[in-house]
């Protein structure tokens, strides 16, 4: 059976061009970039080029890029690093209720160690209101951390507006751009952010690598200590093959952004249109237009997400759900809860996140499979629907 992958917000396949770029750095140019001999210098050169590539892809300077192990680590360095640096001074952070767990759970840890966190709400379409951020600012606010695009419902947040608030109040602004890079234009200067997290494996690069953009003049303490790599912000011998792969993926994503995002948008809109044309009691979660071009998060009344996911998987289609039964924690999606979605719609949510390799034929197959799956489960579920 042909398998169709439509869970690109979870992870993406590594682009074969990326694999090709990485391979020499495992066996031939395997040196430690800190070594003075030629092996080390090859690694140092690769690191130098990679840093420029990643910087270019987001409009940054090379020296503003810190390579990390991925989005989670980047978020942790940004949040914990600022508070650590400002110890005894400004200790209040503003974030939102729909952040990724990498931010939310770091915040709840910081709260447990005596720091103040304000969680601004989102509206019913999953968008943060910049005025709420403005009203949350206090004299001791040091950082605002609001994601660029949400991982579940794909909503794009008003980062530019929030950047003005941050600037006016001399507060650092961090954004988790793990989901947006490669799908919409991401430029650190037009966004006006001081820090930005990126993950390689969301943009057809390898897992285990990412970056934190730190605007010149941003003062953080590291959260790891060691040999002084990455300007002391992230010590540990660099993962050169991973970094080269990440940088290649970043360049490719930037180069093909326009074509890829138009392609995904066309597929996404056909998917949504197709589902609404074939099924009743469906809703689109998140904002209709202010959302990532590859994200379709739909809720189907009278069916439960995990059951749908399993039936779709049997039909060869990989998607994800915000229902409680599918998650490790047995808690339903905090994002869908935050937009005020009724519980039965939360449990019946399915997230389809498209990629550049998906085709219109696959969308047509998916629409048919969704119709079959939902109809079958509705026959089992509601007396009203039989």
């Amino acid at each position, binding site marked *: 059976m042909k398998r169709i992958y439509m869970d690109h917000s979870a992870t993406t396949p590594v682009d074969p061009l990326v694999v090709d770029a990485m391979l020499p750095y495992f066996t031939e140019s395997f040196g430690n970039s800190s070594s003075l001999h030629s092996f080390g210098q090859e690694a140092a050169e690769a690191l130098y080029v990679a840093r420029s590539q990643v910087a270019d892809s987001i409009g940054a300077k090379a020296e503003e890029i810190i390579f990390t192990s991925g989005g989670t680590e980047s978020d942790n360095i940004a949040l914990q690093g600022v508070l650590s640096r400002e110890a005894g001074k400004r200790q209040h952070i503003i974030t939102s209720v729909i952040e990724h767990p990498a931010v939310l759970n770091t915040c709840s840890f910081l709260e447990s160690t005596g720091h103040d966190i304000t969680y601004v709400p989102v509206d019913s379409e999953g968008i943060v209101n910049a005025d709420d951020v403005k009203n949350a600012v206090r004299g001791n606010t040091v950082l605002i951390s609001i994601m660029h695009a949400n991982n579940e419902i794909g909503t794009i947040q008003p980062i530019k507006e929030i950047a003005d608030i941050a600037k006016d109040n001399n507060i650092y602004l961090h954004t988790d751009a793990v989901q947006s890079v490669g799908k919409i234009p991401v430029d650190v200067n037009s966004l006006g952010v001081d820090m930005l997290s990126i993950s390689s494996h969301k943009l057809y690069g390898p897992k285990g690598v990412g970056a934190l953009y730190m605007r010149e003049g941003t003062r953080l303490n590291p959260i790891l200590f060691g040999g002084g790599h990455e300007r002391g912000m992230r010590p540990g011998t660099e993962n050169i093959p991973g970094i080269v792969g990440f940088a290649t993926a970043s360049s490719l994503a930037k180069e093909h952004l326009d074509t890829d995002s138009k392609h995904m948008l066309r597929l996404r809109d056909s998917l949504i249109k197709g589902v609404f044309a074939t099924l009743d009691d469906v809703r689109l979660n998140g904002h209709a237009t202010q959302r990532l071009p590859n994200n379709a998060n739909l809720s189907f009344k009278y069916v*439960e997400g995990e059951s749908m996911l399993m039936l779709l998987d*049997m039909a060869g289609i990989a998607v994800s759900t915000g229902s409680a*039964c599918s998650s490790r924690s047995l808690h339903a999606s905090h994002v869908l809860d935050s937009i005020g979605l009724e519980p039965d719609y*939360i449990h019946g949510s399915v997230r389809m996140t498209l990629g550049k390799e998906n085709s219109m034929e696959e969308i047509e197959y998916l629409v048919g499979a969704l119709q079959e799956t939902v109809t079958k489960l509705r026959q089992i579920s509601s007396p009203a629907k*039989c």
Partner: protein
Amino acid sequence: MYSKKIIEEFTNPKNVGIIEDADGVGEIGSTVDGDVITMYIKVDNGVLTDVRFKTFGCVVAISTSTMVTQLAKGKTVEDALAISNQDVQHALGGLPQGKDRCSGFALDALHKAIDDYRSKKVTI
């Protein structure tokens, strides 16, 4: 992660539906929790001659529902009440770890249907 038996029961559940003139109906759960199971029973001479269900829920909720109907059908009310959660899980080839939360719901719904049947009998 699910046993072959669970997937089989989940994909082709038996005894789905309502019994219009049921002798007992039991519903448990709420859409807030994400599982709603309704069991319908038909009783003749103390024997469960028909057991049907409607379930809004996950793979475990659906597969335990159909298994409970299959185990209970043909049994006396007393024997049906003696079916344990372990019996259901065993018949399904076991449940993955962390998935036993909703495995008892289907049995609870059956018990409620039997309670309903008994309470009606008393009033008659």
